[in-house]
């Protein structure tokens, strides 16, 4: 029932459309600002884990650096849309969340993330476990499911790609 509710929200929310044509020069400027915002979101999310990394999970700093490095490389790709950039940050934050919970369920979580119906539940699991450790990080992740629901197919592609990148680079 809860899963159905999650997907119903997707149908109800339709973003407004831009007024008229956007010229290439404007598009370029927009792309630059989208890149800056992506960096900001990454900075905000990852800074919230700074004080817990290392204190709770041995070796987490190495994992965190790997995730940040892969994410940094991904975000610098110019062809990514703003939505995809945001999804990459959220999926990376979810992976970091798995590690920070200390139970190292990354692989189980990764395979479940490829199933659209499992995505909200996976995020819910991460949030409930991460909230006592770092509430500020959990508070932002709590807002992710609605955004994921709006962009579920892109989200699944991004999760897939993030996990593959991490496996190759870890």
């Amino acid at each position, binding site marked *: 029932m809860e899963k159905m509710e999650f997907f119903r929200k997707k149908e109800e929310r339709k973003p407004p459309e*831009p007024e008229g044509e*956007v010229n290439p020069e404007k598009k370029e*400027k*927009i792309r630059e600002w*989208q890149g800056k*915002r992506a960096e900001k979101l990454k900075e905000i999310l990852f800074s919230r884990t700074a004080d817990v990394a290392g204190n709770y999970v041995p070796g987490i700093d190495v994992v965190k650096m790997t995730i940040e490095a892969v994410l940094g490389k991904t975000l610098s790709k110019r062809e990514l849309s*703003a*939505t995809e950039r945001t999804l990459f940050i959220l999926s990376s934050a979810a992976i970091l969340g798995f590690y920070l919970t200390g139970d190292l369920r990354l692989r189980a979580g990764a395979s479940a993330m490829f199933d659209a119906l499992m995505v909200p539940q996976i995020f819910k699991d991460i949030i409930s476990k991460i909230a006592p450790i770092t509430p*500020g990080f959990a508070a932002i992740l709590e807002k992710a499911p609605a*955004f994921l629901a709006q962009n579920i197919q892109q989200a699944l592609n991004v999760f897939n790609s993030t996990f593959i990148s991490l496996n190759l680079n870890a």
Partner: protein
Amino acid sequence: MILSVSDSAMEKVEKTKKLEELIKELVSLGEDARELSFWQTIFDDLKEEEQDSIIAMLQKEALELRGR
């Protein structure tokens, strides 16, 4: 003290309103509505300096896109 709390609440309302206006304008100028709506969703969970920084970024972008 009560006045101070009230001022702070008013400031928060003003910031949220400002953010909404900026997003509306930026979308009309060609920005990605979905990505910006995510910022709107998480805005209350951001620290004050983070909120100010996002509003400043959006203001600068709006200025640039308006061509001023």
